[in-house]
Each structure stands twice: as C-alpha cells, then as structure tokens.
C-alpha cells in the first residue's frame, strides 16, 4: 500500500466511524487534493464533509480551529506546510493553547496535515521542515510518519486524539509502497502518538530518523552491515511527545548516537534529542560525540545539483555512523 492510499484509507475509515470528522482545505474535494490524498472522499461523503476552501491559510485554519472548539473534528489539509506559516498563529496560539487557557473547559481536536520538508526542485519557500517549529509548542502533538503503516495508524490516532495534532507528511513518500501487516489493514488499527519504533535492531550505533530520512537510514544500516557494523535504526514517528526513552534504551546498548533529519541544523529535532541525551544519564553511556546529520544551513536552492548537496543522503549517513565508530574521519 502506498503512503497516499494509507492516508486516504485512514481518513475514510475515521469519517465512517465518526460523523463529526470532516476534511477541508484547498482543492480537497472536487480536485481530490493537490496530492490526491483525499481522492474519492467527496463522492463518498458529500460536500458537507469534504469542503473546498478559498486560498487563505489563516482563514481556513481559523475555521478549522473554530469548528473544533465548537465540537467537530476537522482534518485541515495544507497544500504544503510551507504555506501554513500564514496560519501559524491559529495553530499555535489558538489551537495549541486554548485547552489550557480555558481551564480545561474547551478541547480543540483538530488535525492539521499536509506535506512537510523538502520535496524536489521546489526551492527555498517550498522546502522547509517544520518539525522543530511545532515541536517546541506545549499543547500541540506533532507527528512525522514514514511508512504506510505509520501513516494509517498515526493519522487515525491523530483524528481520534482530543488535542490538536500537526501531522507532517512527506511529498516524496506519497507514492512509495510499503508492506502492510494484516493488523494494519484493520479499520481499528491505531498507533500510539509519542512512541518511536525500532525499525532495525543493532548493537553498534543508534541512528534516529523521522520521515523520509528513515529510508536513507535503513539503506545506510544495510550498507554498514556489509562492513559488519550493526546499526540500530529508530523511526521517531512522533516529534512531540518525543519518545526519548526508546532512544535512551538504544544508546545504552550502542553507546553511539547520530540523528538524521531533513530540517535545518539549528534548534532542530536533532539538537533537542542530543540535548536530552547528554543532559541525563545517557551522557555516561556515550563513547563518541553525538552527531546531527541535517539539511544544510542555507535556504534550499532550486538547482538540482545544489539541492542534492543540501540534504543528507545514504552515503553521508554511512560516513557519519562510521565516524561515531572511529572508523573514518
């Protein structure tokens, strides 16, 4: 099943299950969504529950927040999270804080979803990763899934969650197929938000990644295995709450940690994980410096050769993993 189909199935199943769930955003209905994630939903559920909106992120994100405060469960699609900056006040200040500010009186069960991070050839203003932005806000839950199974289980959980969830997909993964377990095909398949998954066990170095970087990290682990290095790959799945326990457990075993992400290095997910590990008992288990493998600290360039240089790839992860093992410079 492709990631796109998994997301589509998750939305459909939850809309069948709960009348208060509806999906809205630019071109989600008649056009089936800019990336076809909402394909066929208009035909199945009608225009009352699959709502095309005008092109105003602050407007429709605000409508989604209002509808959630009034008891509905909106799924608000952004054509890309790069455009959601125009709506970030609604997501952060209203979505993320109202439950607390209202003394626990008013929940805001909304899902903001859409592609996040770099795609291909779309330059600086379409290529940013927002994990760190939303991940810093108490009151928001932030998910960055990788596989089809992740997408299905986590999106369903996000829709049922009583809190606002920022669901950060990756455009490059939409068409990628993953095997689905029998369990994952069930319409009651949920994955817990806030729990990472060890995708590959190993004893020599821990590689933590999320979203598309999980693909590269697994490839890197495969390459490392050929040199008899057993890398453990952790698919983060959730950015907030962050499953630091799973990472710590792995570090205790491997004594080495690298974190791979498609975002900028500064104040990023990798920085946060590194800080949490070295601040606590993890520090005593480290046999090498923690390293972050991230996007370059420049606005993403358009030219294909420069763009390729701007983001981590498999060989780079291999190299940094070996550096953690003092096998290379």
């Amino acid at each position, binding site marked *: 099943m492709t990631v796109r189909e998994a997301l589509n199935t998750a939305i459909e199943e939850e809309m069948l299950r709960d009348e208060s769930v*509806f999906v809205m955003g630019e071109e989600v209905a008649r056009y089936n969504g800019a990336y076809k994630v909402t394909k066929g939903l208009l035909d199945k559920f009608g225009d009352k529950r699959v709502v095309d909106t005008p092109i105003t992120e602050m407007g429709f994100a605000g*409508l989604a927040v209002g509808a959630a405060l009034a008891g509905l469960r909106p799924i608000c699609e952004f054509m890309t999270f790069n455009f959601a900056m125009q709506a970030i006040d609604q997501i952060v200040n209203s979505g993320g804080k*109202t439950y607390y500010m209202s003394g*626990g009186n008013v929940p805001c069960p909304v899902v903001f979803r859409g592609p996040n991070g770099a795609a291909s050839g779309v330059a600086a203003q379409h290529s940013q990763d927002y994990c760190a932005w939303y991940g810093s806000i*108490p009151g928001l839950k932030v998910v960055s899934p990788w596989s089809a199974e992740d997408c299905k289980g986590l999106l369903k959980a996000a829709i049922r*969650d009583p*809190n606002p969830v920022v669901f950060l997909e990756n455009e490059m993964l939409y068409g990628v197929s993953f095997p689905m377990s029998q369990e994952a095909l069930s319409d009651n398949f949920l994955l817990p938000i*806030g729990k990472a998954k060890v995708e590959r066990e190993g004893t020599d170095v821990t590689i933590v990644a999320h979203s598309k970087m999980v693909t590269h990290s697994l490839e890197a682990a495969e390459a490392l295995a050929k040199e008899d290095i057993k890398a453990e790959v952790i698919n983060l799945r959730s950015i907030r709450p962050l499953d630091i326990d799973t990472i710590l457990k792995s570090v205790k075993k491997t004594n080495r940690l690298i974190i791979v992400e498609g975002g900028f290095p500064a104040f990023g997910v990798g920085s946060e994980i590194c800080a949490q590990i070295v601040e606590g008992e993890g520090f005593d288990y480290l046999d090498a410096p923690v390293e972050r493998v991230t996007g370059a600290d420049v606005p993403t360039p358009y030219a294909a050769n420069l763009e390729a240089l701007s983001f981590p790839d498999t060989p780079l992860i291999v190299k940094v993993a070996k550096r953690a093992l003092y096998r290379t410079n």
Partner: protein
Amino acid sequence: MFRHLGRRAASCTARKRTYSEFKHGNLPHSHSPITTDLEFFNSVRPDGQQIPTYRVLDSVGQPIDGSTVPEIDESFARKLYETMMLLPTLDTLLYSVQRQGKISFYHGEEATVVGSAAALSPTDEVLGQYREMGVLLWRGFDLDSIMSQCLGNKEDKATKGRQMPVHFGSPQHHFHTISSPLATQIPQAAGVGYALKRDPERRGKDCAVCYFGEGAASEGDFHAGMLLASTIPSPTLFIVRNNGFAISTPSSEQYYGDGIAARGPGYGIDTIRVDGNDILAVLGAVREARRRCVQQGRAVLVESMTYRVGHHSTSDDSFAYRARQEVEDRKKVDNPVSRLRLFLESRKWWSDDEETELKARLKSEILTAFKRAENLSRWELKELFSDVYGGDEPWNLREQREELGELLKKYGTVWEPWKKEREKFSGSGDEFLS
C-alpha cells in the same frame, strides 16, 4: 447627515441604472452588464456621501421621526439600563484597584455590547475580543465570576488563573475563551457557525456571533474570516465596534474607505451601520441582523459607531493622542447611558430615586464581590501542569511536576519566601509534599 436615510440605500456604485438600460447585454456567465462608460466606483465618493447610520433615539433619548422603537417592555428595558450602568461602575473599580493590571475599560461602548447581547439568543455562540464583558453579564455570568477571573483565584473556572484579566470564557454561557492575538476569533467564528449549521439540533436556531474592533478589521484574519463565512456559508454574525481608535491609532489612519461596513458588500454579506451610542438602534439592528443570519444561514455584518470615552486599557494614556476636551464633549453629547435613561424616564420606567439606589447598589455589590475575590486563594499549584493535553499525560509534564515536587520537598517547608508563596495556593502546595 441623516436626511438621506431611507432615500438612498448603502451602495458602492456611483450611478444607478437598471439592466435594461444596458443595450450591450451581460458578460457571459454573469449578471454584469456590458457598458461603454469608462467609470470607476469607490466607497469614498466624490460627493462625500457615506453609508447611512441607523438610529432610533435622538441625543436626548426621544425616538426620532419615522424611527421604529424595537419591541421592549419595562423589565427588559430596565435590565438593559442596569447592565449598562454596571459596566462603567465595574470598570472604575477594576481600574483603580488594578492600575498596573491589564483591565480594559468600556466607557462609551456599553450600548453596543449590551444592546447587541440583548438582541441575541442566550445560546448563540459568542466569540469576543475583550470588551464584551457586557455580553456575559447580560447572560448571568455573575460579579463573583468576573472578579475571580480578573484576580485569577480558585473560583476562576473560566481559565484557572491562566489567562490575562478580562480574558473570560464560559461554555455554560456560550462564550468562547478570549484570545489575545487580534482578530483570530473572526475566522474561528466562521468555523463555529459552520459547526452550528452541521448540528441538526441547532441549525436554524443559533448563530455564531463575533465581536471585534475596527482596528482588528485591519488584520488579515478579518478578511479571511469574512471570506470564509461567505464562501462556506454559515450563520455567523459579525459585530464590529468602530470606536474611532485602535489603541492610539485613529480610524482615519486605520482605513481610507468608508469604515468597515463598506467591506461587507465586497464579500456579499448583508451589512448595516448603526449608531453605537443608541442602544435601541443597536438592539433593533442586531435583532434583524440575527434573524437574517439564522434564517438564511449566511453571514451578516453590523458596524456599530461608538466613541471610546476611556483609555484603551490601563496601560494607555489616551490624552497623549487626543484632546481632553474632545473626550469631555463626547461624554456629554450622545452619551449612550443618558440617552437610554432619558428614554426610560419619558416612559415613566425610571426615576431619580431609582438612579441613586442603583448606583449605590452596584457600587456596593461590586465592592463586596471584589473584597470576597481578593481573599480567595489561588488554584492548587498542581494545576500549573494540568490541561496542557487532554487524554493521557505525556512524560514531559509528569517530569516537570516531579521536579517541582522535589524542589518543594527540599525548600518549600524551610525557605521563608517559598513557605509564604505556598500559602497563596489552595492546599498550600501540599499535594507536592506528600
């Protein structure tokens, strides 16, 4: 300026023509007639004509010629007046005791807030800015609750002491929690309206009501919210208080067009401008606006022209940007409270004695409520960490609570400043010590 009332409808077009005059037909798929006249139109008109203002009472509280006095009986009218009187009295007290606090105050906007509140159904969902305490008072949110919220004590059920003063909220009173960033409530109101339309129990019965000032209407959220409420039609009633100033910025610097009302037609929204210092005009206009809104399931815009006699907030000294004399003059002319009082007196619904009695009673009730609230302790300390998330609590909150517990165990009973501080919380923070 009111002689044009009734004769000219609010219109952005400079010339009036019927379709039959246009011999060239219409633009395809449209009702736009083809014209050969190279003509521009604008809400700012060469003849200076502006959108008319709906009014019922003159400046001495008498119905003006040809006006329609909205249906009200004596007890309703008296409740209007008492609620109006309550607002400035409450303000004066909060202002003087909280000079450093962020308590907004409301002189000059009593009629708009109370008059519109009285025109609504008690179950209409209200999304306010932060000058709409009158709506809550009208709906029976009591003085104790007001004071508790402003002081953030343990009876502040609206926010548990987490919100700034006057940032009320009460699901029971269908009043949404106030959001500080300006205008965010406007698109949210479109969402609340959408939810009401989706609810078979409330469709055709309730509407979402959104208050904001003319300054907030400069925010992108205003335009987005109006657009959303009109394109995804929902029963959403927008009430803009145009008090002439966004903090210190006069409305002449806030917009060049004909106020906020001129923008309604741009979004295909039924719009009316009303004299915001005339409570009966506000009542009548909002009643009709609400009727349209609920019946048609579409947005309606009411622009209420007021004058903020007070400062923007306690952190503002408005005499720095406007003349003291101007404010004094406006207090006397068209004073919304005295206009209603004169109206009530002319109907023999009010007397000097009652006025004296009311003033004394309000003052004493407010003082009693304030003193009571002042002596109440805060919420329990553990509430610092609750309600960040619904459902299961993430580890980071648990960890912070435990960390505070460790610190309290270490210093909370031996270090004087913390011992003292603990006493201010309900339960003295004991929940951390056991």
